[in-house]
Every structure is written in structure tokens, then in C-alpha cells.
């Protein structure tokens, strides 16, 4: 049996070698292009025993925290600090760290490892908490993201988003791929490959399914796709165009845009395509619906002459206009707490991600780029992921809600577009 496995692996590996080499360039790489003003100095000591893993867990933790733009990594040197040893507060303070983490990685049987870590406040010299996880050695990345989430939440009071995933469309030549990657761009996997365009991916609230528009039938059709099984069903394929899916907060219904009765208008359907209902009516275009957690459906409409953002109560009612500045405001996405709205506005020929505080009515342009599209909030509301163009190529970028922290995700060749930030994992 072992011999058969080895033979199988060898032959498969040979067949795959070339394919893998060419696919390596499809991996997203992340670049930090702006950081917060006052970054907290934090040290992550190397964990005792982590050199037994394929790569150090703490490399992942440090990269995550650094990328958030809220922390400045302080070096403690190569010697590891274990989870149980009394910490050397003096040494950490002398390096200038306000908080630090120590940890131990130890075999726990059956080829698995226990990772135990503790976070300290260096000034008050108190423990801020500890956690232990058991993992296979190649899960160091997942474990690192979870440790970073723990530290982020203890230090900022908000949940981290390092364990979340993003969806996006990669176009390389004539090929379109709907891909899923970790929030840091690593671990990209293809959910759907097609010769025809794919747009508007939308995560189900539980993170198990994506709704999207595929043109594989020479027209836009809305599908719902279960990522773990690859099973998909048509959610909307009425006569005419079917597009712009958006999940209801309970994950049971989708707002969609249909042209079955004339111009592009808002409807809702069950995720299996049954139970179609009209959501709003206008004499113009209504599109790009987005459900808020506080009972509104935001959307783009040109009923007033130019494309602007409106909202209707999810349970039915009159539409209210939301955007008033400028002649082109599209692609609205409410923040997870419903207090602000991000959208794309045209400013002197530039399309830019803009934040609107729904309480104070203040707007802020968050980017200095010119071809921004498809903004979506991180589940903690701290960052906005969007598509833009750099040097004629489509890339993804993320910006913090205050416009300070900036990241860019790109591939070596090909266009990346249509990003959607997934929800917190529910494992």
C-alpha cells in the first residue's frame, strides 16, 4: 500500500510540477503602503520549540500585526521565550515594547503540536491572557492568524480579522477565476474557473457560500456556490439580466437585480431561487443592493437623473436619497454596525472610495487613486477592501476607515478585481 501511494504521489507530482511552477505567480502578494499615526510598540518573542514547524508561527503573528498598521514590531532577538517561564519584563521594557507575547510549541502526540502562548502588559507587568491550541505542523499559518486575532482584540478591544478570507476574480488572458484567499493573500484557492466573466461575488453571512454573477450562459445569471463541496445552484436566471446579489443578514434571502419586467430593478429571492419578490420600484435604474444589519437596503439609482445612493427599509417602504454631493455615487456598502457607508464617488474624473458618516453626514475620500471599484468592509469595520488600477493592471487595495493605513494586494501577472471581504470564520 505504501509503495502504491509513493508511486501515485511521484507520478502526480511529475505531472503537476510544470503547472505548479506557472501557478506560483498567481499568488497574491501584499505590500503595506501606509500606516497609522500612533502605532503601539509590541514584541512577539520567538516561541520555544517552534523551529520544529515548517515555518515559525511567530513570523505569521508579527506580519499580521504589522500589516494592521496599528502596531510597531519591536525585536527581542533570536532567543525564544517560553509560555511558562517567568518573563524578563526588564529586558522587554528596555526595548520599548508596551506589550509582548511569549509561547511554547511542544509535540502533543500523533504528529501534532500544542501551541501555548501568553500576552503581557509590559508596563503593568500583568498577564493579559493566554490560549492553547493543538494543530498539525502545516497549520502554523492558521494558528498564527488566530494568535494575532487574540492579541489584536486584547490590545484594541475590537475583534481581529486575520483569520478571515477574501474572494476576488483573477483574470489572466481569456481565463477568469473566482478565488478565495486568506486575508493576507496567502493560500489562494480557485472556486470557479471560466472562459466568461465572473463579477459581484458576495459572501453568505456564515462564510460557507458565495453568490456571484457568471456570464457562462452568454448572459448574466446569479449562482449560489457552496465552497466546501463545489455544488452550485442558479439563484436567478429570469429572462433578461440577473445580477448584483446581496445576502440578507440571516443568510436566507438574496437581493438581486432583474430586468424581467423592464429596466434593472431590485427584487429578493430565496437562496435556492424560489419566492421572487419586488423590493422597490422606480422609473430609472436601481442596482447594487446591500443589506445593512440595522434593517435597510442601500442601493444605487439614477431615478433622479444621475447615479446616487438611496435606501429603502428592508421590510418595504419609501426610498430615501442618501448621497447628495457630486454627480456619480455608486456601489454602496454599509459598515457592519450600520453607522457609516462606503461607496465610490467620481471626483473630477477620478473614481475614489468615499466614507459617509450616516450620523454626522460628513464625507471623507479615503484614497488618492483614480479607478476604485467594489469596496467592502472587513467584518470588524476597521478596513475597506476595494479594487483599483496601478500601472494599467487591476490590483486589490485596503484602506482603514480613517484613510491612514493602506495595503496593496497584487499578482505578478493578470488582473485582480471584484474583491469581497468574508465574514468571521465560525469554526
Amino acid at each position: 500500500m505504501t509503495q502504491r501511494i509513493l508511486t501515485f504521489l511521484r507520478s502526480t507530482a511529475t505531472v503537476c510540477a510544470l503547472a505548479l511552477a506557472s501557478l506560483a505567480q498567481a499568488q497574491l502578494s501584499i505590500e503595506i503602503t501606509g500606516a497609522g499615526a500612533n502605532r503601539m510598540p509590541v514584541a512577539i518573542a520567538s516561541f520555544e520549540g517552534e523551529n520544529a514547524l515548517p515555518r515559525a508561527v511567530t513570523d505569521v503573528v508579527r506580519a499580521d500585526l504589522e500589516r494592521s498598521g496599528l502596531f510597531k514590531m519591536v525585536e527581542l532577538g533570536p532567543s525564544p521565550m517560553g509560555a511558562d517561564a517567568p518573563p524578563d519584563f526588564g529586558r522587554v521594557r528596555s526595548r520599548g515594547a508596551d506589550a509582548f507575547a511569549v509561547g511554547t510549541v511542544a509535540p502533543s502526540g500523533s504528529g501534532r503540536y500544542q501551541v501555548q502562548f501568553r500576552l503581557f502588559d509590559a508596563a503593568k507587568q500583568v498577564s493579559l491572557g493566554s490560549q492553547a491550541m493543538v494543530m498539525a505542523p502545516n497549520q502554523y499559518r492558521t494558528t498564527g492568524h488566530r494568535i494575532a486575532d487574540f492579541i489584536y482584540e486584547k490590545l484594541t478591544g475590537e475583534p481581529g480579522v486575520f483569520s478571515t478570507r477574501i474572494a476576488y476574480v483573477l483574470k489572466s488572458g481569456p481565463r477568469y477565476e473566482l478565488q478565495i484567499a486568506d486575508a493576507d493573500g496567502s493560500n489562494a484557492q480557485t472556486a470557479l474557473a471560466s472562459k466568461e466573466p465572473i463579477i459581484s461575488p458576495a459572501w453568505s453571512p456564515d462564510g460557507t457560500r458565495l453568490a456571484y454573477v457568471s456570464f457562462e450562459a452568454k448572459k448574466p445569471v446569479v449562482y449560489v456556490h457552496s465552497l466546501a463541496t463545489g455544488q452550485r445552484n442558479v439563484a436567478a436566471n429570469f429572462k433578461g439580466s440577473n445580477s448584483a446579489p446581496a445576502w440578507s443578514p440571516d443568510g436566507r434571502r438574496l437581493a438581486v437585480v432583474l430586468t424581467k419586467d423592464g429596466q434593472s430593478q431590485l427584487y429578493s429571492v430565496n437562496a435556492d431561487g424560489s419566492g421572487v419578490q419586488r423590493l422597490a420600484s422606480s422609473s430609472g435604474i436601481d442596482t447594487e443592493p446591500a443589506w445593512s444589519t440595522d434593517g435597510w437596503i442601500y442601493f444605487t439609482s439614477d431615478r433622479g437623473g444621475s447615479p446616487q445612493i438611496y435606501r429603502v427599509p428592508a421590510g418595504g417602504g419609501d426610498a430615501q436619497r442618501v448621497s447628495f454631493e457630486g454627480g456619480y455615487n455608486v456601489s454602496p456598502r454599509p459598515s457592519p454596525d450600520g453607522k457609516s457607508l462606503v461607496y465610490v464617488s467620481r471626483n473630477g474624473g477620478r473614481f475614489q472610495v468615499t466614507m459617509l458618516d450616516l450620523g454626522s453626514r460628513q464625507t471623507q475620500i479615503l484614497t488618492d487613486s483614480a479607478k476604485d471599484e467594489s469596496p467592502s468592509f472587513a467584518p470588524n469595520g476597521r478596513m475597506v477592501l476595494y479594487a483599483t488600477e496601478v500601472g494599467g493592471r487591476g490590483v486589490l487595495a485596503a484602506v482603514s476607515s480613517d484613510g491612514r493605513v493602506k495595503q496593496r494586494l497584487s499578482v505578478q501577472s493578470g488582473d485582480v478585481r471584484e474583491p469581497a471581504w468574508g465574514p468571521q470564520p465560525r469554526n
Partner: protein
Amino acid sequence: MKYIRVALSLITVGLLAACTSSPPTDGQSAVAVEDRSSGAASSGVDNSRVVPVDAGSADGKSAYPELKDPKSVLSKRSVLFDYDSYVIKDQYRSLVEAHAKFLTSHPNVKMLIQGNTDERGSREYNLALGQKRADAVKKALTLLGVSEGQLESVSLGEEKPSCGDASESCWSANRRGDMLYSGEF
């Protein structure tokens, strides 16, 4: 033995995924990490695994040679529109009339009208604008007597440009409605 089989199937899935479509995963298996501190057990459903799917596509041939004959006006299928306009220009009147005549004399033939836009702005809003162009062609054909049941107007928005540069000449070529007959879509 059971473990070997499970491992083999996981490896197979991984390798096949890498072969067909997905990039290498940095040795990262997608199995959920157990969290001992919270006492959470693995549910058995692997929610971070992604199974690749190939969409395929429909490409067919038309049964009517005159639709492909370069000498026939019926081989011409595109109606171009002005910027921010959804009105069919006079220069396309004879083209639309020829297609209306063909459709009324072949009531079993169906037509898919695809509206397109240039690349500027939101993809979904452009999809809605492309629909207005397709609808304009559809309306012109029905006014010339074509049965509504023979026609479907859809939009490709900015997704299928016939010309890929960011220039006005290119953008104008992309502001169009295309007429496809049964077998071509």
C-alpha cells in the same frame, strides 16, 4: 489503514486542485485548527476547503448561412451608441430592419441581444446601462413586427469589450448592442 486512505484522498484532492486551477498552498492544509482552550471540537465539515469547479461555456453554430455570409447585411450584428446615449442612430436603421425582416419570416428563430458599455465606472451600474442599449435594439425590432417571444435582451456591461485600450475610439467601439441568433449563444 483507514488513516492512510484518508491521507491519500486529501493529498489527491490537494494535488488535483493544484493541477487544475489553484496555486500552491504553502504546505497549508485547510483542516480547521482545534482550539483546546475553548473546548471546541472539529465539526467534521471542512469549511475552509474550496473545491474547484469549471464553468464550461456554450458555443454553437447557426443553421442559416446568410447570417454568416459577409455579403449579406445580416452578417452585420453590431449597433454602436454615442456616449451616455441609448438611442439607435439613423445609420443603423436599415441594419435593424433587415434583422427584423429575417426574424418575422423565421418565427422559430430566436435572438439574444447583448448590450455593452465602455469601462468607466461601476461594473454593476454599467451592466444596467448596457441593458438599456439592448432594450433599445429590442424595442426597435418589436416595433418592426418581431414577436417579443423571439427576443431576449441582456447586458454584458463592461465585461466583454471588443477593444481593450483606454481611449475614446476604443470606448466608442465598446458602446454597442450585439445581435446573436439561435445557435450562437
